[in-house]
């Protein structure tokens, strides 16, 4: 059923159809609308049986989810940015214990300076935490990936993070095809935990493991993610059968056949990129775009398959590995091991800076001429940077950087629209 709704609402509806049994909520923008929606459904009795728990922190949110999942309940929470960082210890713990919690991360920048707008710094900080990380391109995919996430996580006993761009998706009203409960039930079987806290069959979960077995435990976590590489395409295929939509999978190549230049990216920027590529293709350029849905596990083989015949790869990243540049780029490079391709890292959209087609055109033209620097910051205002560096050179107490730059910019919101 087609429906015009907010991204958060679409996700909340999808999560509700997955029949979660315990939801823990702690407010942080921009995920708040999702749990608000779920909270209302639980309180009204529309979503039952389900416990909706207003916790005192993200750390508690993930911890409650851990307890609930270990006791056999399908558990869900959502967070973003600082919230994700605040729960990190429990994030690692959930995957370490093999508890199939599903969590939405409404991607948002990490401070300081505090910034509520979208980039991928939060999820990327957790790339090694052992969770499966799926990135949604649009609201429809965000909706679909949540349904797939429960299925995948529970099959593997691994937690899954569904990443959707904050505000750009969470707060955007788009048309989505809302599945029926019957479809979801047909796709997602009831949760059968691999381990459960039950007096009928007591076990001790969370033992201390020393050097004698720790490597094996970590290896098994890795092996499970490798299994996910096989399961994710299967699940996408099954999903298509039931829902009639091609959604999910490991990667989504777009016009990559015969492409000499391929842009790699994740999340909502893929939409803008596709439009840009369409225009460039129309102009006769052999260019395509590769969207990565599954960032963890990282589909090395699938990516290599798409990129291996290209001449150059531009990885457009909404995050920055300070001191080196790209995060996704590093992983893509590993997929291209042994191939002689030009590789460029473009850092774009940090803290919600708009990524415009114009900027992309300009940048990609440079790339195709191999004039791009290895690490490029899209639309970086060099003057602002210079002025600040100058200030620092001039006096010791140059003052707070972010505030100085804002003063230089003049209008705070100038760059957001």
């Amino acid at each position, binding site marked *: 059923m087609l429906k015009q709704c907010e991204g958060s609402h679409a996700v909340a509806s999808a999560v509700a159809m997955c029949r979660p049994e315990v939801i823990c909520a702690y407010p942080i923008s921009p995920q708040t609308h999702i749990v608000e929606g779920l909270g209302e459904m639980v309180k009204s009795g529309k979503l039952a049986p389900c416990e909706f728990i207003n916790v005192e922190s993200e750390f508690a949110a993930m911890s409650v989810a851990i307890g609930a999942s270990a006791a056999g309940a399908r558990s869900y929470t959502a967070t973003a940015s600082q919230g994700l960082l605040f729960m990190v210890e429990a994030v690692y713990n959930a995957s370490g214990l093999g508890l199939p919690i599903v969590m939405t991360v409404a991607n948002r920048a990490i401070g300081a300076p505090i910034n509520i707008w979208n980039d991928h710094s939060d999820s990327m900080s957790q790339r090694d935490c052992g969770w499966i990380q799926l990135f949604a391109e649009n609201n429809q995919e965000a909706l679909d990936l949540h349904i797939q996430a429960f299925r995948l996580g529970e099959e593997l*006993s691994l937690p899954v993070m569904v990443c959707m761009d904050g505000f750009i998706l969470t707060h955007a009203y788009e048309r989505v095809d809302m599945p029926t409960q019957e479809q979801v039930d047909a796709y997602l079987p009831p949760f059968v935990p*691999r*381990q459960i806290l039950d007096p009928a069959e007591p*076990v*001790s979960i*969370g*033992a201390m493991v020393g050097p004698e077995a720790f490597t*094996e435990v970590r290896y*098994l976590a890795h092996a499970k993610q490798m299994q996910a590489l096989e399961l994710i395409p299967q699940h996408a295929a099954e999903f298509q059968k039931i829902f009639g939509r091609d959604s999910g999978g490991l990667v989504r190549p777009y016009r990559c056949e015969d492409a000499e230049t391929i842009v790699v990216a994740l999340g909502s920027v893929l939409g803008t990129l596709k439009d840009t590529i369409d225009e460039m293709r129309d102009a006769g350029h052999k260019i395509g775009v590769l969207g990565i849905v599954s960032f963890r596990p990282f589909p090395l083989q699938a990516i290599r398959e798409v990129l291996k015949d290209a001449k150059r790869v531009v990885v457009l990243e909404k995050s920055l590995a300070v001191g080196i540049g790209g995060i996704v780029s590093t992983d893509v490079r590993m997929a291209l091991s042994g191939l002689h391709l030009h590789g460029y890292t473009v850092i774009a959209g940090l803290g919600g800076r708009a990524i415009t087609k114009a900027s992309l055109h300009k940048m990609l033209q440079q790339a195709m001429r191999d004039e791009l620097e290895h690490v490029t910051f899209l639309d970086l205002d060099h003057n602002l940077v210079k002025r600040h560096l100058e200030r620092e050179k001039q006096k010791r107490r140059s003052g707070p950087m972010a505030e100085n730059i804002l003063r230089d910019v003049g209008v705070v919101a100038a760059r957001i629209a």
Partner: protein
Amino acid sequence: MEKPFAITLDVGSSLANHTGSWRTKRPLYVDRLPPCNNACPAGENIQGWLFHAEAGNYEAAWRVLVQDNPMPAVMGRVCYHPCESSCNRGQFDEAVGINSVERFLGDEAIKQGWKFDAPPKASGKKVLIVGAGPSGLSAAYHLARLGHQVTIFEAGPFAGGMMRFGIPKYRLPREVLEAEIKRILDMGVVLKLNSRVDNILDSMKSAGFDAAFLAVGAHIGKRTFIPAGSAAKVLDAVGVLHSMEGEEKPMLGRRVVVYGGGNTAIDVARTAKRLGATEAIIVYRRTREKMPAHDFEVEEALQEGILIKWLSTIKQVSDAGALTIEKMALDDKGFPQPTGEFETLESDSLVLALGQDVDLSLLNGVPGLEIKDGVVQVSPALMTGYPGIFAGGDMVPSERTVTVAVGHGKKAARNIDAWLLGSSYEAAPKHELANYEKLNPWYYNDAPKTMRPMLETLRRQSTFDEVQGGLDESSAQFEARRCMSCGNCFECDNCYGVCPDNAVIKLGPGKRFEFNLDYCKGCGICVSECPCGAIKMVPEEV
């Protein structure tokens, strides 16, 4: 369930980890000697029988008791209970009223008609006992229990000895004494009354006795030289008490003076009071602190109106019964010395309670005997210098109490038994003493001693009714439960509970506990928290 590797584990699997290997010391359950048992002249296992009494299992308690002492009803009245003086509970609140529980058990046995177990197979050996006093009866009982055929020759018309002739009725009702004697005789012990033994060797030979136990007691009242007028009425205490058992009660008059400071002096004075004396006065040469009589008896006597003249000796008795008394003073060493001050005390009769001597005439002609200070010398096994003839009670060197005599009877019986079998009796080595420091008194409730009811003073002054009453059942049980079970496990479950390693195995009611040395780390909490000191730590052997 197919659990995740390593981080999820099967319950209880740590049993595979034997933490006992950490230990350098191990706990050991012990039975220490409770001070009451240690102090009991009759060798009673007091803690042992209180253990059963606590549970209300009085017959079991009585049966443990009579393994050592066949006359608990008597003992519960006349024993001076050194057990209570040494009771650890005395350092906590007040000593356990062991004696009153013993009396309760004895009375209960009489009431319920409990009998001694029948002796085992007869040994075919015959033992002669001379004297049916406490040690003779005790020996008879123990020898009968060992299967020997026992005959008692008693010179007098009644059995009981000093229990009958030395202890007034108001302390020991005669029906109680009779009942306990009868129960011993019911085992098949032959008692021949009015059968004086003039020569022990002849008596043994005549009836083919294999061994003899002499327990004739000390019945001859000691005299001291006091110049007295010919008409003066001077009696001896044993005689007075003895005549109380006959038809003719002694005529003592209205003013009776008793000379002496022992329990017998008190008994005579209290008896005189009951016989109608308006004044019963004890004259004693030293002070109350030095008096050999038990203080509770002195106290009871004072309550009944007995007067005591301390630091006084009698120098002379006139025909009219006027006594010349010299005041004494204690010297530096605590001995009384004459002061030269005199006074006069009017009396109708003077009773001398200065101790008793033994009639040793039956031993004439027995070779090898040693007599010293008027008593027969015996080996630690209570055998006289003549093989096969043993002696005990007041006629051998010892404290002269009923309880000591009963203890002698038991000891002699065991040694006679061994001697008859051609061996010697070895007492089991004594356990280490369970003194107060070995206990953890925290665990005991404050529970003051239960007092036995006392007869009202007026009736005590005029009748021979028993002065001290017995405890009812609940009081007796309460009193038994005050026992701290010093040195002996009473199954309080503390060790089982306080072990952080679950290394104590509870074996079930009556079976106590066992250490599981696979897991015991040797922390010693069980030792510290054992209320009664029945666990100790010992070094682990390499």
